[in-house]
């Protein structure tokens, strides 16, 4: 629920620097021209307007982002047109980093990463597709080869070393 009157209580003064820390652009230079909204595929179909979201970042209205779904398509058209040279898509990536750390990871990400840990890739072929590949003489998919275990172990090691396990909460499941 949005606050009807803002009193400054909801303002998080650290939000902008937190966004920069997680690799987002400095949103303070945004002119609020609205060009990003007009080219944003999501803004065209939903009540969420890119320009408005950047303004909320400027204000430090961090908590409101926890109620907004992760729906930036990452198409970067906003950046392409932005006269202030801000990349809102990268700002939203930074906000996702904050959300992952403060509010947890969406399930689909955890599932996807799990699949990648088991197969090396986020998809597995159906039997039909397996047969087609054989018929056409396509190379066998790497995850069907015995030697591929090493690659999977490497991935697991990387996740452990970068702390990705912890960020995603994969450790607890083990």
């Amino acid at each position: 629920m949005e606050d009807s009157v803002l009193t400054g209580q909801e303002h998080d003064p650290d939000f902008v620097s937190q966004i920069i820390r997680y690799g987002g652009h400095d949103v303070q230079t945004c002119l609020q021209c609205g060009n990003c909204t007009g080219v944003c595929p999501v803004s065209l179909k939903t009540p969420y307007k890119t320009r408005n979201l950047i303004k909320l970042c400027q204000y430090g209205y961090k908590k409101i982002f926890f109620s907004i779904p992760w729906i930036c398509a990452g198409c970067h058209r906003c950046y392409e047109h932005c006269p202030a040279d801000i990349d809102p898509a990268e700002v939203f990536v930074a906000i996702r980093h904050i959300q992952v750390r403060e509010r947890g990871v969406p399930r689909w990400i955890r599932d996807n990463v799990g699949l990648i840990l088991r197969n090396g890739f986020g998809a597995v072929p159906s039997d039909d597709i397996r047969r087609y590949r054989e018929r056409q003489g396509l190379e066998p998919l790497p995850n069907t080869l015995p030697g591929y275990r090493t690659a999977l172990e490497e991935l697991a090691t990387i996740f452990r070393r970068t702390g990705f396990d912890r960020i995603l909460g994969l450790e607890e499941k083990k």
Partner: protein
Amino acid sequence: MRYALFSGCTIPNRFPGVEYATREILGERYLGAELLDVKEFTCCPALPTFYSSDRFTWLTVAARNLTVVQDLGADLVTICNGCFSSLLKASEELQNVLKCNMVNNVLADIGRQYRGRLVRTEGHRNFYEPVRVRHIIEVLYNDFGRKRIEALVRNPMRGVRAAVHYGCHYLRPTIRTTIDDPANPVMLDELVEATGAESVRYPEKLACCGAGGGVRLQVPRLANAITKDKLDSMLAAGAECIVTGCPYCLFQFDHAQRELRISSLPVLHISELLALAFGIDPDRLGFEWHFVTVRPFLKRLYPSVVEG
């Protein structure tokens, strides 16, 4: 020409025909390139999953893929916009010595180190350049050229009106992907026209397919609504098919049309279109995994071939 093909996840597992078509057209029978088979690749990794939750893990996993090819003396060629964007961005970020060292600290644990590709040696010093990450569209356009492709066309696509869809990660953000003009891209259009087809102008050409960034995974209805605008724009311009360089866009256009029960524009990857134009047997191209059937389109094009 020597390339290490990075086929990614969507193509081998959902549209294996694209992989087949790519290998065929690049291979010795047509363009005569040498394709290296690399078995140690993993997920590129996917931007919505990794890049959204931890940039450092994303960079490290991507760097690992780059270490796999750095000593092969070949450019890495992607046939998917997602793989292209993820790996290219990683290759550029790794030029930052600080980031590269941090990544290599982790890679050391798995016995790897990202250095890039060796370009020359002077005395005891080795000089490296970043691993070159390429996109199939741009490889076909720059390394082979429209003329060579035109010369290989056996079945000209005369009269076919195609809506070209580049896909976001091919064009943007421009700061790194400066391979084509983001406001007025030409490469895919020219490849399509090399087959004899016509690339139609439509206002939503630069728009997203709708699936990107996990939108399809999370809010499929939103994804389809975005796709519908784009399809409407294509249909209004009189398009008969869609040609793209990205399997995820292909998947979205294909699925959305079935789910929305609206148009029936066949969707082709550029490799598939070229394979057809070069005269490769359509029955071998795995079109059965396209949701919108390609058959009527093929029938018109080659009545004799598809008869059987």
